[in-house]
């Protein structure tokens, strides 16, 4: 079976309905190490630790077979828009 970038994306999309989602396979293809950037309304009113718990809980099944999961960004849709606007302006 093994965990793929696609399966991580599918699970997060289904469970958290993100407005932005980027899953990067950092394992060189063996599917065991991922970076995640996610913006979802599920994070509103939550501190960083709680946001990470939301992602970890959504990926309970996948995490058993993952070597490393790095949640690089866990933003609310509003924070994501803000950050995106800044990055675009800087580019």
């Amino acid at each position, binding site marked *: 079976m093994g965990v793929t970038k696609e399966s991580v994306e599918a699970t997060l999309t289904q469970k958290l309905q993100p407005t932005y989602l980027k899953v990067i396979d950092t394992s060189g293809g063996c599917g065991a190490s991922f970076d995640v950037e996610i913006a979802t309304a599920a994070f509103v009113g939550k501190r960083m630790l709680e946001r*990470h718990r939301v992602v*970890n809980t959504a990926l309970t099944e996948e*995490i058993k077979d993952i070597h490393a999961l790095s949640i690089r960004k866990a933003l609310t849709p509003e924070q994501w828009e803000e950050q995106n606007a800044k990055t675009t302006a800087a580019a």
Partner: protein
Amino acid sequence: PQGGYGALSPEMKEALDAFIAANKVVLFMKGNKNFPQCGFSNTCVQILNQFGVPYETVNILEDDSLRQGVKEYSNWPTFPQLYIDGEFFGGCDITIEAFKSGELKETLDKAMLS
């Protein structure tokens, strides 16, 4: 790897409670502070070294039942795991972010005074 439900015995929970209560800063990691065996664990060690605070590391690679037990204890699926002042602070990403924002320093300062 298999799911770790049921790995946390009452004895292990008691031992973890006591260890975390006795040490203000504890890092459960792969390897130890002198010889980290994973880039994420190493990052956390380097961050803690910046502050010059005393801290203990526990090598979860040495004992698979401990590794599974700590996951359950923290309700956190990955390592490293940082505890400050008896409370779970976060994994590597949270620690890095809190380091950058100054929140980690604040939390450590508070812990050292308490």
